[in-house]
């Protein structure tokens, strides 16, 4: 059928529509840039939404100081190549107190360096809309998230009091201090993301691809010692393994998987044949079930 768009192109068009609505209706939008694969797709969609013009809003990276070095290098290269306006924010108190996941625990560290830092950055710059790369298929509580997710003055999400959202008509009205988190990738699945990266040749951080890397095994999780701040515990040794990461975040909290997938076809193949979901590698979710919803209520993206 000549006038029938394939589903991936439909998703693309839907996302572009959302991104343009935000650019048109909000005073100060920002795109959260986490450097991961979803962010990479979202960035490409933003480019597409305004081409041949440039992206009319800045990108914000919340730097927890524990991101993989390769991620930071990739971020800076993308900002230079695509010439977008990159803002970087680190929680100054957290930085002063050297808040880290080893001494403070993953929950507190994430709260201070991610959740609080994000709120600070949004308030500091006065952003009234922030794009995030979250997808509804990631986790059960996300399945009910709106595309435009309203946050009160305290950045809190009230799942019982969400605005109804019909068609592609989005309600962009907020009072001062309130904001909207916008999720243009809401309807994408993990497979869609990889397919899009493949067919659109979107650059991604090489850590997604399998390579011989030095890892340690801690509490059943394979971790990379990206710098000396992560000290080896007694009995731990660095061993070379062919590994890759299914998601990217803070290196002490992000588990690797052993894999031989060194290209996108391989990744997708492993994913489709896999028996575990993608968030499995994230230490942050190890708490009790429903933890993501609790974090979101508190303002986590």
């Amino acid at each position, binding site marked *: *059928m000549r*006038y*029938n*768009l*394939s*589903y*991936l192109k*439909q*998703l*693309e*068009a*839907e996302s*572009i*529509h959302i991104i*343009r*609505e935000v*650019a048109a209706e909000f005073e100060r939008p920002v795109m959260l840039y986490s450097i991961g694969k979803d962010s990479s797709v979202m960035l490409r969609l933003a*480019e*597409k939404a*305004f*081409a*041949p*013009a*440039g992206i*009319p809003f800045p990108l914000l990276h919340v730097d927890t100081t524990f991101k993989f070095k390769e991620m930071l290098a990739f971020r800076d290269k993308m900002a230079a190549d695509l010439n977008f306006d990159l803002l970087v924010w680190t929680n100054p108190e957290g930085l002063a107190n050297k808040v880290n996941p080893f001494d403070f625990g993953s929950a507190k560290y994430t709260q201070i360096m991610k959740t609080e830092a994000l709120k600070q950055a949004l308030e500091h710059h006065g952003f009234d809309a922030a794009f995030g790369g979250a997808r*509804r298929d990631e986790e*059960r*509580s996300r*399945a*009910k998230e709106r595309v435009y997710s309203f946050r009160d003055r305290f950045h809190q999400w009230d*799942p019982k009091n*969400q*605005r*109804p*959202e*019909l*068609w592609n*008509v989005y*309600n962009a*009205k*907020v*009072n001062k201090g309130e904001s909207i988190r916008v999720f243009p990738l*809401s*309807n994408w699945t993990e*497979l869609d993301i990889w*397919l899009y990266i*493949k067919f659109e040749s979107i650059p991604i951080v090489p850590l997604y691809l399998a390579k011989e890397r030095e890892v340690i095994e801690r509490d059943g999780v394979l971790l990379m010692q990206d710098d000396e701040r992560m000290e080896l515990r007694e009995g731990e040794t660095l061993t070379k393994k062919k590994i890759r990461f299914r998601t990217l975040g803070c290196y002490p909290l992000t588990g690797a998987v052993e894999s031989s997938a060194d290209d996108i*076809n391989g990744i*997708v*193949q492993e994913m*489709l*044949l*896999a*028996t*575990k979901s993608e968030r*499995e590698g994230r230490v942050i979710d190890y708490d009790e*079930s*429903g933890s993501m*919803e*609790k974090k979101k209520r508190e303002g986590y993206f």
Partner: protein
Amino acid sequence: MKKDPLIDQDIEAYLKKHQAKDLLRLITAGSVDDGKSTLIGRLLYDAKVIYDDQLEALKADSEIHGTTGTNFDPALLTDGLIAEREQGITIDVAYRYFSTSKRNFIIADCPGHQQYTRNMATGASNCNLAVILIDARNGVIEQTKRHSFISRLLGIRHLVVCINKMDLVDYSEDVFEQIRTDYEDFAARLEATEINFIPISALEGDNVVDRSEHMPWYTGAPLLRHLENVSIVSDQNLIDLRYPVQYVARPHPDFRGFAGTVASGIIRKGDEVLAMPSRQTSRVKSINTFEGEIDEAFPPMAVMVTLDDEIDLSRGDMIVHPNNLPRLDPDFDAMVVWMNDNPLEVGKVYTFKSATTTVPGRVESIRYAINVNTLHREQQSELTVNDIGRVSVKLQKPICHDPYSKNHTTGSLIIIDRVNNLTLGAGMIIERGTPATKPATEVSKATEPTSKNIREEASLVGAAARETLLKQKPVTIWLTGLSGSGKSTISQALEERLVQSGQAAYVLDGDNVRHGLNRDLGFSAAERTENIRRIAEVARLMNEAGLIAISSFISPFTKDRVGAKEIIGDDRFIEVFVDTPLEVCEQRDPKGLYKKARSGEIKGFTGISAPYEAPESPDLCLDTTRLNVEACVHAIIAMMQDRGLIA
């Protein structure tokens, strides 16, 4: 877990195949215990999209929240939020994603409580199909009717009624048939749409993915098979170009791009277009995408258009074709679903957002509310939460709009509170203008639908229902050619042949149009253009009524035929060039007109003293010097059969 063997053997081929699939968006609706979550869990589970770790988490949860004892409880896969897991019920729309080898699916899982009508409307607004669940033990209940009505109200054309828990009624055909009859009695008042009935047991998996061994009397497809095969391409409106401008990009002084999503119709490079509401015309200079320029764009593509001229056009405005305009009016009627605890107040100022336009306005009156259980109209002075009613809206400035039945984008709106910014309601425009409330002094152009006395009741009958009734896809066979080329003879023979074989067809020609509808028109260039425009509008109406229209006019100018095509729609306009050389026509000269033209008695005669612009790429070309009438008719019929228009 069974996986597609291609994943292992040829991943590249698998991905290419997957990427080309289409997308079906569906909602599931039913009452609290009808088993929606169980059904979705079953679909996800049987379609192999549940990971082991999710299944592990599920097992842990089952011990705390499970409602099926020690059995596998698929419902827990979808009941996401803590609050609802504690209550054991779904309270908000949740979206689920899965794919089969044929199609990708997005499911909006809609809650069944009476007080959550708003969620149902939300979920339904983006869907092609609704799965309505009925508990076989309870049959058709009030909520079944409510859910079906809302699905239709939101424009869903395909309904699948799943009669669930068949295992609890001994898989009885009688029970199934009784419920089916009850539903059909009720659905007659919904104005027909495509309805299918499937007996299932979501918990046991009967007729969900695989055919049930317990119900050999059911010969239809299992649910998943049906979802994979139902055709949704014809639901698209490719006829009326509506391009709401979303964002204007101006990277440098030489480029002014109008970014937008094509809501309906097709926009092409070089098209003559009109900007609404400024009514300035221009041409499409380019259609830009990240990948470069393209020649045409169709729904739901998101593109960036540039125009030849600097005209007044910004966000909230609309690009359309000059011959096919939306209504531009501050007044209209809409069916409203009210979604807030504070009732809709007549006269209060709200913010209305439709497509990319946001305008303050008020509801002037509530014409009636609909009792969704009986579908009766009731007089009500206010609409409270979960009420549905027809209201008259008056905005502070006119907006471009169409009836929702024709266009979901330009026919829909949301109502926003001006103080707390909440989305209070959603509306579907059902009528152009309110009657007799305005002085009829406004001058209107012929092509502009502004008469305040025209009431267009949006038809609830879908094109699909008419196609089924008449067993044909309505099109317009547009014959063009010189006077004496054989158009009339062919068209009449074609009409006769179609009617004889049971098709509903009608010929439009000079005899029945020029003497009535168009008797005020002469033969100047402008009047000829208007003549063709009116004929095209009539043909479109006939097509909408389900009829095959056969138009038999010289229609010498390309631009007029392009205009007709715009009105009738690309996929319904079939151009047939009756290609008879001038010498042959002049030889035939059945009415002696060529003789008169040669002698100068008739001026501006096509072929002699006025040009005939032959079609460049007609759908069919008939050379009457080689084909007799019967062969010409045969060629047209064969083409119609090839395209699946008639059997």
